[in-house]
């Protein structure tokens, strides 16, 4: 699975929305995600890729495309 597919699966599972609602320009707000959802999403992605994500980085994440790019960057920094 690509990073985008993994992120899509985790985000839509946590916020309990259909996968079709996940798109590049969709924001966490559009997905109905609150701060508790975001903590659970970040935790699940950390488990999947054995990386550490910083909550404060989320301030710069505008939408799902940006979120996927951020995760790809963290995976690559970790040497996976």
């Amino acid at each position: 699975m690509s990073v985008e597919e993994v992120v899509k699966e985790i985000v839509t599972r946590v916020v309990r929305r259909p996968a079709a609602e996940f798109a590049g320009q969709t924001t966490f707000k559009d997905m109905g995600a609150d701060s508790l959802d975001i903590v659970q999403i970040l935790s699940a992605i950390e488990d999947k890729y054995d990386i550490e994500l910083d909550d404060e980085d989320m301030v710069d994440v505008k939408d799902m495309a940006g979120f996927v790019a951020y995760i790809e960057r963290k995976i690559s920094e970790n040497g996976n």
Partner: protein
Amino acid sequence: MSFKGKVALVTGGSRGVGKAISAKLADGGADVIINYFRKKSTAQETAREIEKKGVRVHLIKANLAEADKIDGMFVEIEKEFGRLDILINNAASGVARPALELDDRGWDWTMNVNAKAVLLCSQHAVKLMKDGGKIVNISSLGSRMVMPVYTAVGVSKAALEALTRYLAIEFAPLGICVNGISASAVLTEALKIYAEAQGLGDSVYQSTPAGRMVAPEDIADVVAFLCSQQSYMIRGQIIIIDGGYSVSPSHTNNAK
């Protein structure tokens, strides 16, 4: 106090109160399994510090809100150590909102981490406590006193305290002592975040009749005692560590 040859699991053991407890048990010679939720680098740093005491430290990342993650944690403990002697249910989380603003998911999250995980971890631990054991559950004064936006956490801690009593009786024939400690505000990063988010300023940094705030090491000292043979006849109790705060006539003003 000697815990040589003992294996201890401290949930939420990499920071704050949990870190002080992990260090204290390691001082007594226990090998320590530290469960943490997300901050791997912090957990690794804590592990390095505690390993210097000459004990084995094993890190396990697990979100205790999820039952299958708790199952996985104990599978790993059995594989790595084959036994457990001490369980400290310290991990805590919570949604900080007034009662009217709490939704079901925030409520469930808080209850799952602070109360249900204590039951599930204890059930797993019993199977590994082959020569008896000690379980200590960490509560807070919010279980019985009202603090701003602490509704869900306070209620979850009341559940944890009741569970402590039930487990103490049920586990007594198995040679397992179960107790809890309840502390007033402890000077940790979590308190700073709570105070800042709620705009409480310095009001949470209350003084106590004892003349200072509770420190993580104050909790760790009592936890170590409850894990020792000297506390054998203490069962199902919640020991309050608050420098006299909760029995002081002025505490209601301090809590505002």
